[in-house]
């Protein structure tokens, strides 16, 4: 599925020639795509949930349930681009801890909500820049770098906070994690939707998006095609850091406090979401639509099973099976058809 193959004839219309993400007609692609399979799974889970519990179909309950995935999904968008480009960032949850700790320090120094938000975003960007510089300037593998910074960033939080906590955030700060934009739609959910659109446009409709695919498929070829590979990767690390900063603002606001253990283990859930969304873990292909549906699938599964009071251990088994199942089924299907 090389995205750089160009066996399509140039079109008659003027303007830049379109290079397809995948090599089949749009109609069959839409039908056979990962996204439609996943959408089917999402709808099935939604219906099963609705049948299994009388409490599922309630606007406010569904609204509460979106908190299960909104923060993770925000990071997953940037992570998807990063993974498509052939890199990964495992330090995202630790960036949340560090950004949240920095916000706590600012809050103690008496700064108001705008400064707190700015702090969260700037710290996120700085962490992303640190990861990005180590990967692009020193040429280190991102998985090694970010496993290191995973301990480093959270370690700083532990040094600052120890077993203490920052509490007493200003009242208007609570809006980001607890407020509603209109009716049942929370600020986090609206932000998630807006970001989904932005990321979809960036990845699928801009030169930068094409460059991301190109870098992930063959970085050397991309470099010789005039794409500044290092710069693309640097921007993606910055984006991932920024999104982690945004998630830190939302999560801190939702919890109303900061502890160094905030968001522990979230990086794996983010990567799970991205892979479940059909992004190739080896880089080169994937879509934002897939990640969006995967976010809903994971949120619906955890909320639905939660309503039935299924123990969390069973829930993780279910998510694991879902991940393996959705990845294995298309391959099995191909093998069976060939046999």
């Amino acid at each position, binding site marked *: 599925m090389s995205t750089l193959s160009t066996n399509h004839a140039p079109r008659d219309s003027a303007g830049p020639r379109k290079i397809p993400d995948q090599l089949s007609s749009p109609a069959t692609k839409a039908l056979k795509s990962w996204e439609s399979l996943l*959408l089917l799974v*999402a*709808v099935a889970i*939604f219906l099963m949930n*609705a049948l299994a*519990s*009388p*409490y*599922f*179909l*309630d*606007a406010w*309950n*569904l609204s*509460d*349930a979106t*908190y*299960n995935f909104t923060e993770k999904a925000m990071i997953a968008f940037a992570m998807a681009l990063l993974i498509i480009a052939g890199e990964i960032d495992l330090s995202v949850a630790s960036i949340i801890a560090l950004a949240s700790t920095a916000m706590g320090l600012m809050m103690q120094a008496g700064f108001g909500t705008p400064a707190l938000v700015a702090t969260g975003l700037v710290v996120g960007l700085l962490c992303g820049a640190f990861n990005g510089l180590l990967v692009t300037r020193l040429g280190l593998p991102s998985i090694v770098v970010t496993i290191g910074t995973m301990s480093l960033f959270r370690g700083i939080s*532990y040094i600052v906070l*120890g*077993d203490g*906590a920052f*509490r007493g955030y200003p009242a208007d700060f*609570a809006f980001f*994690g*607890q407020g509603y934009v209109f009716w*049942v739609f929370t600020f986090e959910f609206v932000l998630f*939707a807006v970001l*989904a*659109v932005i990321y*979809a446009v960036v990845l699928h409709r801009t030169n930068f998006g094409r460059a991301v695919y190109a870098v992930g498929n063959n970085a050397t070829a991309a470099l010789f095609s005039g794409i500044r590979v290092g710069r693309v990767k640097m921007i993606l690390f910055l984006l991932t850091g920024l999104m982690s900063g945004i998630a830190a603002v939302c*999560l801190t606001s*939702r*919890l*109303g*406090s900061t*502890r*160094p*253990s*905030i*968001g*522990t*283990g*979230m990086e794996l859930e983010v990567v799970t979401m991205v892979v479940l969304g059909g992004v190739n873990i080896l880089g080169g292909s994937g879509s934002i*639509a897939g990640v*969006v*549906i995967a976010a*809903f699938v994971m949120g619906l599964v*955890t*909320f639905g099973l*939660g*309503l039935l*009071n299924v*123990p*969390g*251990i069973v*829930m*993780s088994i279910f998510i694991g099976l879902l991940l393996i199942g959705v990845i294995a089924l298309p391959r099995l299907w191909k093998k069976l058809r060939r046999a």
Partner: protein
Amino acid sequence: MKKLAGLMMTAAMATGLMASGAQADNMRIALVVKALGIGFFEAANKGAQEAAKELGDVDIIYTGPTDTTAEGQIEVINSLIAQKVDAIAISANDTDALVPTLQKAMKRGITVISWDSAVAPEGRMAHLNPSSNELIGKMIIKLAADNLPDQTGEVAVLSATTTSTNQNIWIDEMKKAMKADYPNIKLEATVYGDDLADKSYREAQGLMQSYPDLDAIIAPTSVGIVAAAQAVVDAGKVGKVNVTGLGLPSEMAGAIESGASKSFAIWNPIDLGYSATMMAYHIAKGDVKPQPEAEIPIGRMGSVTLDETNSAAMADPFVYDKSNIEQFKTIF
């Protein structure tokens, strides 16, 4: 994306049409624990079931996240709010982070109490401590001191996580008691095993290597104490390093038999789950108002009185050693 947004909208609108039925007659009390699969909380569930049976009109929902995170407990609480349970009795992973979610629960008419590990006062109506922190702090150092010649020697603490509310308070109380009553005992170090068996084991090993003259490891956590006892056995230091602290009889029976641990303490988690359920029931029923100096009946355990922060202590910790371990190891 569009389709899904549409689906959510349809669902939301359908709700308006559907009457939300299924109103159970029994009172539903949710016992929310730090994480599932921990012996202590399984035992607490036994006690809750016992209380439910005794009360007759109560259903217990025993639930909790996979990992001991605040985020995981918030997801659980949100699903309980959605189910419109009558009461939530929670052992919190984080004192502060659960407050906004639990306040939402109370706003929607759910009785919220915490037990074992407390929620900040603004996030719950009352809190049930298994014992008083001061008594626990005194107890764990006494257990170590009683097995030291002339109450003199070197001890170290193996705790859970650096953010574990309970453990931190107990260690503080222990230090106070040391200053007052045990001037010849030296606390060499406090290390954290994060309530993970393998990490606790390595930390205990590290303690014995760093402090060759160590006389006792005090682990005020049921995971840490077992791991520490195992580390002492594996290092061949039985009889030299005594492991004590808080543990479960079923998990500690081997350590008592091998001599790695001479004695340890714990309150009875069955009693704790039982009492928390009783407390939640009486508050949810409206029998008592949760306010300072209110006396709340807790069935066969008698009654507790709330202090100025609406907290109450259930009972003193209980010591287990060679004489009674056989009897209790089958219970929890």
